[in-house]
């Protein structure tokens, strides 16, 4: 019998529907892989019984002829989504032991569609990080290793590093991610999988632990483009409980997938040609251009003149919003309380927050507090909001002459754990290509495109117009079909 954990979401769904295997067999196969992969530290909580219960329901629904879109498909849930009755931590000490009494909108939609949960996936603490090294529950280890004879532990990317590792290592066929400044796309690129951040507002933020609310957006991560389309259809949709939710119908992205790009124009932003970048990144980008031409697209050079200001803009806006959002962790209503002997209320706040937040989270709260403080607000925060307007305008003008934009996802392949932790700025620079689309609220996805000289995956990024997830997925599919990326990490765990 085929190893069920090698199947994609579409293959599991269709095979289950056709009666090739039972959903319980699928859930058991993935549960076994999850239980055997502790060395990767991808999960904070494993929920094999949840996956099995959904599988039994899927098998019953098949017998009754009442199958749902994701019946029989077990998935991983990033531990940033509140799950009723299952610990939700945002990978922080602050929320260790927090068991929500409600379900996030996105996870509820997935369960309603018939999916089961294999567990809660590790991430960077409060989704702040690009390497999954800021989790209170330990680093996630990428299943990939350099082909240099050594066995240095590599970063799975971040913040959705548990999601990327779990999919690449066949611990789940798909997972949820969230993307504030690249947290779906960069880990997808690092681990040779696909992931899409939809237009801001497509997926409800209700029940997702908030980081930077004007940027946070949920999206799926999976092995291929079609699976991303299937997952996104079952995650997106209007939610009155999120004030920024888009009141638009959810398109049938899967059915409309087409890699024929005749009549489409692809923009290549000249400002993304960074001086001193790894030549393998540029070579992969050029190969991607050739693939899209082969698919029938016309390719034009475009300009996004404010690109170099995107990262500094992000590192004002995101920390500012984070400092405000994370003010809720006060040791009173939920989460950790640290009450030193004889302390009053203010001391309790300060002690709780000193103890409950990790170094990177504190750093961002401090930056955010500073740029919002009296006397500095206009110089930093208002200025950043104005530059954000200019960055969004750059895209608007570029899309007058193209349908989608092609760029690398990250400026390098996966780096080793520990290599960038000493220098916050070096870590931030990893998201140089991912952050502009986040600031503009645009849909963007990463698809695996090539292996570098060390045998590590590299990803290409497609950025689309607002609401045009279809255009992004279609261009992604055109690359996927031509790149023929079949490499996977050799099992060592």
């Amino acid at each position, binding site marked *: 019998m085929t190893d069920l954990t090698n199947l994609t979401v579409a293959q599991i769904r269709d095979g289950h529907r056709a009666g090739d295997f039972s959903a319980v067999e699928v859930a058991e196969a993935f549960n076994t892989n999850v239980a055997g992969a502790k060395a990767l530290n991808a999960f904070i909580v494993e929920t094999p019984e949840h996956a099995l219960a959904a599988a039994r329901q899927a098998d019953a629904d098949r017998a009754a002829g009442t199958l749902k879109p994701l019946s029989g498909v077990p998935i991983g849930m990033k531990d940033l989504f509140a799950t009723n009755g299952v610990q939700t931590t945002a990978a922080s000490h602050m929320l260790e032991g*927090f*068991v929500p*009494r*409600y379900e996030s909108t996105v996870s509820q939609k997935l369960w309603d569609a018939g999916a089961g949960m294999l567990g809660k996936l590790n991430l960077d603490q409060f989704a702040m990080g690009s390497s999954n090294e800021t989790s209170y529950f330990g680093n996630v280890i990428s299943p990939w290793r350099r082909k240099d004879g050594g066995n240095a532990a590599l970063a799975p990317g971040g913040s959705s590093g548990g999601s990327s590792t779990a999919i690449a290592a066949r611990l789940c066929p798909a997972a949820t991610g969230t993307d504030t400044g690249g947290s779906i796309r960069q880990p997808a690129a690092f681990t040779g999988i696909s992931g899409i951040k939809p237009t*801001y*507002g497509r997926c409800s933020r209700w029940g997702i632990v908030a980081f930077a609310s*004007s*940027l946070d957006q949920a999206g799926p991560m999976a092995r291929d483009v079609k699976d991303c389309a299937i997952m996104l259809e079952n995650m997106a949709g209007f939610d*009155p*409980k999120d*004030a*920024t939710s*888009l*009141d638009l119908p959810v398109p049938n992205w899967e059915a409309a997938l087409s890699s024929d790009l005749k009549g489409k124009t692809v923009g290549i932003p000249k400002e993304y040609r960074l001086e001193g970048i790894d030549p393998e990144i540029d070579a992969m980008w050029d190969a991607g251009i050739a693939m899209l031409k082969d698919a029938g697209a016309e390719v034009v050079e475009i300009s996004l003149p*404010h690109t170099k200001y995107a990262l*500094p803009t992000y*590192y*004002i806006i995101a920390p500012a919003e984070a*400092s405000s959002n994370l*003010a809720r962790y*006060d040791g*009173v*209503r*939920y*989460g950790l*309380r640290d009450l030193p002997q004889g*302390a*009053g209320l*203010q*001391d*309790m*706040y*300060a*002690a709780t*927050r*000193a103890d409950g*937040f990790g170094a990177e989270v*504190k*750093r961002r*709260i*401090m*930056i955010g*507090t*500073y740029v919002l403080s009296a006397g500095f607000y206009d*110089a*930093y925060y*208002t*200025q*950043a*909001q*104005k*530059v*954000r*307007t*200019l960055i*969004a305008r750059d895209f608007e003008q570029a899309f007058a002459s193209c349908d989608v934009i092609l760029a690398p996802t990250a400026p390098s392949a996966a780096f080793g754990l520990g290599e960038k932790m000493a220098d*916050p*700025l070096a870590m931030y620079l990893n998201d140089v290509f991912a952050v502009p689309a986040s600031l*503009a*609220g645009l849909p963007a996805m990463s698809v695996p495109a090539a292996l570098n000289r060390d045998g590590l995956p590299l990803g290409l990024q497609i950025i689309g117009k607002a609401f045009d997830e279809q255009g992004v997925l279609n261009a992604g599919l055109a690359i996927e079909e031509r790149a023929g990326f079949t490499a996977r990490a050799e099992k060592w765990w």
Partner: protein
Amino acid sequence: MAIDQATVRKIASLARIAISDAEAAAMEGELNGILGWVEQLGEVDVTGVEPMTAVIPNKLRLRDDVVDADPLTGGNRRDDILANAPAAMHGFFGVPKVIE
């Protein structure tokens, strides 16, 4: 503009995060590094540019004025709300005494 350790301690106090002198010293360098880097935004000409408030144009909706319109966010959920409180008592959030 560079910040000193006194400013670091002031920000920490505003953010309600207790920090030691050693942490304040370490943070002084880190924060100055990041702030020095973001200061390049000052060179962008933003004359006549409106600060962005909504990335995707969207109107703020008003819901119908109905009590408990949504069962998840409506009322009568006291026990759920208190379930994760570190020191709930008598149906309330417990805090250290704030008046003598």
